[in-house]
């Protein structure tokens, strides 16, 4: 096992910045989010998780799909990113959420070229969670604070160093690039790593048993239980804008001089306009239907189409909902009621 001593982390990041555009958690408008760093000093290391979802690095809130000059020329290729990217310090749940987005953006072999141009260009250095938040419930959705799935390199914070493990081929290459800065772990450090890994899972203190939920939900579309959840929801959409697995978007044209640019931007199933048809007909006119859609999509429809739940238990929607609508309580209630 190799380590990077905490006092050498600066050198570690500087080395990476020679080869890559490095994105890491930084403080911006009093919130922690991933941004491209220009010095290692910007990086925030004491954070449970970022406010914004790191999936925004791959599927940004707003992006230009292409520009057309009004006479001709429709470009066929999306723009290529120039330098390879490292995302430093992404949490295991968020790394997993990218694997979930991969499925949508690759459905039936139709690749979303904008997403994959960034995705294939990036290396994820995942930081295991030694201090999960009270809203985290990753262990209930098939993951955990030390989940290596989706990581290229995996880091675990020890008292004086970070244990560093290459997970993928891409990760191994980075491992070689920083090899000079690494040291072998001592007996004591190995023990401490094993201990931390063991303890981390126990520190997740919210647990929802979701066994059989998606099968059960299949027959519950018309169940009266859906009459309860939406009552407090004000339809603000915070839960979806912060959710790392949410992927809905809208597409619009913007005219700018002789050019038209086609942009896409996040959209949200909690809004009535989302499904409003031109005729005035709206298949989901009520908040009840929209809350049901959000829950059903993540815990039933997605399972049906892709074989897994589209929630990684990051807790962002719980932490930020202005009316404290807690997805865990919804799930517990759904598990409880007679289907």
């Amino acid at each position: 096992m190799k380590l990077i001593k905490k006092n050498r982390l600066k050198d570690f990041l500087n080395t990476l910045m020679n080869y890559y555009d490095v994105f890491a958690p930084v403080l911006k408008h009093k919130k922690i989010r991933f941004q491209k760093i220009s010095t290692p000093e910007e990086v925030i290391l004491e954070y449970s998780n970022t406010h914004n979802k790191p999936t925004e690095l791959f599927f940004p809130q707003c992006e230009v799909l292409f520009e057309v000059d009004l006479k001709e020329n429709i470009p066929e290729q999306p723009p290529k990113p120039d330098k390879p990217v490292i995302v430093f310090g992404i949490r295991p749940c968020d790394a997993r959420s990218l694997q979930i987005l991969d499925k949508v953006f690759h459905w039936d072999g139709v690749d979303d070229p904008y997403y994959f141009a960034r995705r294939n260009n990036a290396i994820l250095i995942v930081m295991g969670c030694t201090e999960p938040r009270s809203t985290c419930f990753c262990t209930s959705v098939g993951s955990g604070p030390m989940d290596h799935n989706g990581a290229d390199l995996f880091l675990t914070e020890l008292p004086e160093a970070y244990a560093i493990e290459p997970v993928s081929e891409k990760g191994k290459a980075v491992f070689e690039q920083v090899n000079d800065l690494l040291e072998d772990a001592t007996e004591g450090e190995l023990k401490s790593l094993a201990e931390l890994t063991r303890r981390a899972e126990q520190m997740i203190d919210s647990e929802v048993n979701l066994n059989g939920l998606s099968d059960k939900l299949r027959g519950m579309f018309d169940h009266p239980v859906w009459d309860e959840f939406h009552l407090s929801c004000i339809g603000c959409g915070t839960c979806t804008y912060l959710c790392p697995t949410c992927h809905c978007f809208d597409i619009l044209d913007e005219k700018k001089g002789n050019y038209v640019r086609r942009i896409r931007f996040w959209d949200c199933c909690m809004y009535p306009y989302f499904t409003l048809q031109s005729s005035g007909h709206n298949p989901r006119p009520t908040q009840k239907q929209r809350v049901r859609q959000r829950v059903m999509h993540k815990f039933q429809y997605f399972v049906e189409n892709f074989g897994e739940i589209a929630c990684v238990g990051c807790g962002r929607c719980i932490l930020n909902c202005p009316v404290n609508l807690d997805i865990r309580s919804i799930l517990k209630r759904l598990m409880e009621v007679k289907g």
Partner: protein
Amino acid sequence: MGINPYTPYPVTIKRVVVENEDKDIKSFELVFTNPEHEKAFNYLPGQFAEISVWGYGECPIGMASSPTEKGILRFTVKKTGGVVTTALHNLQPGRQIGVRGPLGNSYPVNEIKGKNIFIIGGGFAFTTLRSLLTYLIHPDNRNNYADITVIYGARSPGELIYKDEIALWQQRDDLNVYITVDKADEHWDGLEGFVPTIAEQVIKSWDNGVAFVCGPPIMIKFTIPVLLKAGFPPELIYTSLEMRMKCGIGKCGRCNIGPKYVCKHGPIFTFAELQQLPSEY
């Protein structure tokens, strides 16, 4: 579709036909700027495309032409008062627009060989049924299918679309064509009555048939029981669904009905499939 499923192919508007008296339904005949794109745009009846009007955006429209009609791509569009359809209606021949597709699934033109075909349409939703009918009666294909019956109705004579073609269909002896209007006027000498009523008079038994039903929800709602009563299995009744769409390729998350995405698993569904879906459409 090309490398990038979000970029449309450039096409030029060759001809615009006003289809109805209210003048809010127009057919647009389009030609591809690049012959390679025409080859790549390999479609079947029932599929749709996203039409781009630069500066206004895109909207999904079913192909009204048949792949057997080489050199031309046709869409019939109702002006809803919305952004894209209004902009499109203002365009004259010669203008360049974009077409992205083909998207979605199609009518099962191969699986239904040997069967009696019933095409039942109401209002301007007859568009993709026109594509289907044109495909089925093409000389290369006609012998693959048994009897073909067409029942088509509109509010009034002036609201029937494709009038010139209807006249040609009516002259053929290998088609049974029933054209009806909800309310006749003094010049109308055809059938009068709602589509489901006419369907009930015409279709007495299943008789190894397959039915394609498109129209306003109310028409579909009353036509399906007629077919079921005649003995049609729900798996052999097809319809085309509509949900608000953006990407057309199963990514923007907008058009699902339960676990099914209308842009990807549809827009064509059998009545048997609809019975499995939540009634949220």
